[in-house]
């Protein structure tokens, strides 16, 4: 992680790709693409009350665990593509990281991607609630 930012270096190309979008419609289009290529999606048949993230305007669910190597594993799903896209980017960021590092990570990559400027505070709260949930779950896995 660099100075003044908390996301891992392997997320830099994605952050750059979003920040270089011509306008917010292009940014949404890119987010929709990331939603389609989510690395670790949580299928709807695993969406349950206990893994639901509250505060999102759409349905969103996260399941956190550690993989065979002890790295963090985030599986998540949402019905809205915007939220699913944000979750996909988050999964790319945190999967494989040490859970203690995930527990310390901030949501500033969304800012750098220009996502927060596309989402009003109440909508961003949905993302922040999801991110907070991931961080809390990571803390439990330390």
């Amino acid at each position, binding site marked *: 992680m660099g100075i003044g930012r908390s996301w891992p270096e392997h997320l830099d190309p994605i952050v750059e790709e979003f920040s270089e979008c011509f306008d917010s419609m292009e940014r949404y289009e890119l987010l929709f693409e990331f939603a389609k290529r989510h690395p670790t999606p949580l299928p709807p048949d695993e969406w349950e009350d206990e893994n639901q993230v509250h505060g999102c*305007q759409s349905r969103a669910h996260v399941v956190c665990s550690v993989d065979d190597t002890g790295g963090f594993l985030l599986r998540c799903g949402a*019905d*809205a593509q915007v939220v699913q896209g944000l979750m996909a980017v988050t999964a790319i960021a945190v999967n494989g990281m040490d859970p203690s590092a995930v527990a310390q990570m901030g949501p500033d990559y969304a800012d750098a991607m220009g996502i927060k400027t596309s989402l009003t505070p109440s909508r961003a709260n949905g993302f922040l609630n999801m991110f907070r949930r991931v961080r809390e779950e990571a803390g439990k896995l330390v």
Partner: protein
Amino acid sequence: MYSPHAALIGGRSFDQCGDDLPLDIEAIRADFPILSRRLPNGKQLVYFDNAATSQKPKCVIDAMSRYYEEYNSNAHRAIHTLADEATAALEGARDMISSYFGTSSDQLIYTSGATEAINLVAYGWAREKLGKGDVVVLTEMEHHADIVPWQQLSIDKGVEVRFVPIDTESFTLDMDALEVALDGASLVCVVHTSNVLGVRNPIEKIIEMSQSVGARVLIDCAQGAPHERIDFDSLGADFIAISAHKMAGPTGIGCILVKKDAMAEMGPFMTGGSMIKRVTMEKSTFQDGNAMFETGTPRIAEAIGWGAAVEWLNQFDMGEIHDHINDVASWTAAQMREIPGIKIYGEPEREDSSGAISFLHESIQSLDLALLLDEGGFAVRTGHHCAQPLMDALGVPSTNRASFWVYNTMGEAEAFIDHLRYIVERFS
């Protein structure tokens, strides 16, 4: 009487406002400063979320500012000049609002909005009058504000709650089912106009049917009042709930209109200052009439703002307003039906529809669609619209909703259709 509203209506005095003025939409738009704003992305605002709340004309904003700038004081509580002016303005607004709704001021109880108005009936009337074995009839179309208070009453008092279903083909109430549900009913609570479907229910018929079995009737007019002139005394309902903010007034105020004999059956709901006659260490006695139900410092600025709003509305023929809204909504709905993947819930083209278009796209989720519309400057609502039983009946968790009011134009509707087509082509 002191009138804070005089000469505030865009240079037009209330006395000079006649019902014969033609509807000049551009002049109307000029009364709403917010309609000229641009969003942070530079897009011109197109406000299609009027069923959630309407925008406010300058005369309403000015009336409220003038109260705070010139005569802010607590009402009903002192003899100094400012208190006198504030009290006169508060009660003057009550006179104007009750007159607008075709009734006397002593039948109007100020509330925070339609939700509190319905709760006031549930707590102030139903808890006094109803008990185990009594029946309250609702419909599947109701807003949560007209469902949850009755469910709570059912839990607390053993009252039976019955729901009248809708016909999901015509999006109208099943009137045969209503007739069955009315058997033994004590209270019938029906929404005048659905906030989701825009459907205007046959409330005159419902009132007649309900009263023929001896039931009291509550009509939720939160959506109806912005679209037609509600005449309480002529309509004959026992209770009518209204929110100011959907009809050009400020948020935080509404009212319940109550028939005199029904009010006589009510007990206090919220208690405290103002609503008492005498308080001793042992007990309290209460004011008579509507004063019993208004405790604490009144919503003075809000009442004054609402008074200015009804003055503003009073210059128009509500039938013309309805026709204009219906024209825009009908055209928009017809265009939307041509866009691949769009499904409309309701029949906005019907003559009595109130200009709300609930819709979904088959592959673009409602939150995504609302965000993408917002990027074009179009404010629409997404969600369950506080009507989850209706969503269940429609078989969807949420919808998008575009809802129109007097200041919306056909040009805005055309721009909306263009942007919606663009979204569907690019994102579906």
